[in-house]
C-alpha cells in the first residue's frame, strides 16, 4: 500500500517574525471548505515552486488543534540551506499561494500516559506547541524541557511562559544551563511517556538515558528534525522507467526522482515513516543511509534505500522504480 498525501492550495495569510531566525506562516484555505483537522504532533508537506524546481519540505503544525481554521507553521532559516527554508523566508509573501499536503501525524501523544514529559531542542519545539494546547485543554499532567542555544534563539519562549506557567523549563546553553537528562528520567512517575524532538545528539542522549534507567521502549517517542543531507552528486538508473537521473549536491534522491517525473510515495520526507522505501536492484558502490527506518539487518543486506534522505557514493545505483 502506498499513501501519498493529497495536496491542496492554501493562501499565505500572515507572516510573523518570531526570532531573527524563525518566521511563522499562517496558511488559509483558498475556498470556503475548511482545512482538514489534525492532532498535536502532525506535520504537513509544503510544496514550493521555485522557478523550475519543486521543493517539498515537511513542517510541524504549530497552531492549536482544538479549533477548525488556518494552519500555522514555523520555519527556521537553515544555516546551510538546500533552498526550502530560504525560499520560505525570502521569497514567500502574504497573498501567495502554496500547495500543502493533508496533515500526517508520526509523533502522536499516547493518551494512556499518566504524565507527558516533552524535551525540545531549538526548532524542535514546533510539534510540542500543538501538543501542549491539547494537553493543557485536557488538563493532563505535562512538562516541557526546552533547550536553546542563546536567548534570542528561544522561539515562543514568552508565549510558553504565559500560556503554560509552571509547565515549562528553559535551558540556555550560552548561559551555561544544561538539561540533565539522566536526572530527568530518574524521577518520573510510573506511566510517564517521554517525547523528544530536536538535534540528533539531544535525541540520542535522552533516549539512551531513559533506556538505561529501565524505561520500556513504548514509553519513548522521538521525532528527528533532519533535513536531507547534501553530498557528492551521483547518477541513479530507474529500471522500470528506463531513466537515468542526476542527483545534485543539494537535492535529495527523492527530489531528483520526482523532478524526472517519477512518483514515489512519501509521508515524512525525513527518513522516519517508511513510505518511500525502495528496492535497490544494483549497487556498485556504497549506500549512504541517513534514515531512522531501516534495520541494521536491512542495511547490511543493502537491498533497500530510503530516497527521501539517503544517498549513494560509487559507480552505479539501480533502483526498482
Amino acid at each position, binding site marked *: 500500500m502506498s499513501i501519498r498525501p493529497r495536496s491542496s492550495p492554501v493562501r499565505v495569510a500572515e507572516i510573523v517574525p518570531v526570532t531573527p531566525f524563525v518566521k511563522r506562516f499562517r496558511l488559509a484555505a483558498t475556498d470556503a471548505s475548511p482545512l482538514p483537522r489534525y492532532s498535536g504532533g502532525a506535520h504537513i508537506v509544503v510544496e514550493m515552486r521555485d522557478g523550475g524546481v519543486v521543493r517539498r519540505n515537511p513542517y510541524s503544525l504549530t497552531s492549536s488543534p482544538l479549533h477548525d481554521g488556518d494552519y500555522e507553521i514555523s520555519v527556521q532559516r537553515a544555516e546551510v540551506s538546500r533552498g526550502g527554508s530560504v525560499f520560505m523566508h525570502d521569497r514567500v509573501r502574504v497573498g501567495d499561494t502554496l500547495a500543502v499536503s493533508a496533515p500526517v501525524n508520526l509523533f502522536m501523544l499516547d493518551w*494512556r*500516559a*499518566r*504524565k507527558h514529559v516533552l524535551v525540545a531542542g531549538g526548532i524542535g519545539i514546533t510539534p510540542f506547541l500543538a501538543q501542549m494546547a491539547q494537553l493543557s485543554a485536557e488538563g493532563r499532567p505535562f512538562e516541557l524541557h526546552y533547550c536553546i542555544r542563546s536567548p534570542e534563539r528561544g522561539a515562543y519562549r514568552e508565549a510558553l511562559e504565559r500560556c503554560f506557567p509552571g509547565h515549562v523549563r528553559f535551558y540556555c546553553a550560552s548561559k551555561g544551563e544544561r538539561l540533565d537528562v539522566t536526572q530527568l*528520567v*530518574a*524521577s*518520573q*512517575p*510510573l*506511566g*510517564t*511517556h517521554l517525547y523528544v524532538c530536536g538535534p540528533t545528539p539531544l535525541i540520542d542522549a535522552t533516549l539512551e538515558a*531513559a*533506556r*538505561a*534507567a*529501565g*524505561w*520500556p521502549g*513504548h*514509553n519513548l517517542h522521538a521525532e528527528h528534525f533532519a533535513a536531507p543531507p547534501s553530498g557528492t552528486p551521483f547518477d541513479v538508473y530507474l529500471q522500470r522507467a528506463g531513466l537515468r537521473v542526476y542527483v545534485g549536491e543539494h537535492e535529495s534522491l527523492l527530489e531528483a526522482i520526482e523532478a524526472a517525473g517519477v512518483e514515489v510515495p512519501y509521508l515524512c520526507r525525513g527518513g522516519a515513516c517508511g513510505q518511500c522505501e525502495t528496492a535497490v536492484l544494483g549497487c556498485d558502490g556504497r549506500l549512504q543511509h541517513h534514515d531512522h527506518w531501516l534495520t541494521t539487518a536491512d542495511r547490511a543486506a543493502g537491498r533497500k534505500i530510503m530516497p527521501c534522505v539517503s544517498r549513494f557514493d560509487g559507480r552505479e545505483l539501480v533502483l526498482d522504480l
Partner: protein
Amino acid sequence: MLASGIKSRPVYGRLTSNPQARSNIMVADAEGALAVLDMVADAPDGFWARTHILYVPGGSAAQDHGAKLAALAPFSWHESPTVPAMLPRLRALLGAARMGTQLYLAGTEPLIGEGIRVAGEFGVDHAGVRTEHRGSLARRVQCVHCKGITESVTMSIVPCAHCGRHLFVRDHYSRRIGAFQGVMIDAEKPGDRPPAEELYR
C-alpha cells in the same frame, strides 16, 4: 466448538528478571509463587532487596509458598486473602512507583488479568508487564448480555451468576475488564444447549 485463532486470547511467557529495572513489583497467586521462586537462580545481585512482593495463596494455601517468598527477604512483602483484597496495595505501590519499575504477574489468569487492568490505570502498557501463567485455568467471564462477571469458571456452558443465562465461554478476551466473553448459547431455541464440559480446570 471452541473458537480458535482469536487474537485477543492472551499469551503468557516465563518470568525473567529485568536487570535494567531500578525496582520491581511482583504479584503472584497460588502456584504463581513457584514461578517467582524459579527466578532466584538467575536474578541479578540485590534483586530482591529492590523488589516488592504481593501474594494471594488462594488454592495453594496448604503448601505455604508464602513462607518461601518471604524468605527471599524482599524490600516489602504482603500476603492478602483474595485478589480483590490485594488490589488496593498494588494500586498504592504503582501510584508511588517511578519509571524504571518493572511489574511481574504470575499465577492464575484472573490474577494476571486484574494486574494488567490495574496497571493500565497507571498508564503502564500491558506489553511491558512480564507474566507467567501457573496453576488453574479457571476464567473470569463477563456475560455480554447483563455485563455481570462470573468468577472461577471451569465449565463451558456455564450459567451466568447474575442473570442465569447459559453462557458459551469464548476465547475472546477483554483487557479493559480482564475477562473472557460469555455468550448465551440457547438464544435461538431456549433450552436447546449442548452439555457443559469442563474445559478450564
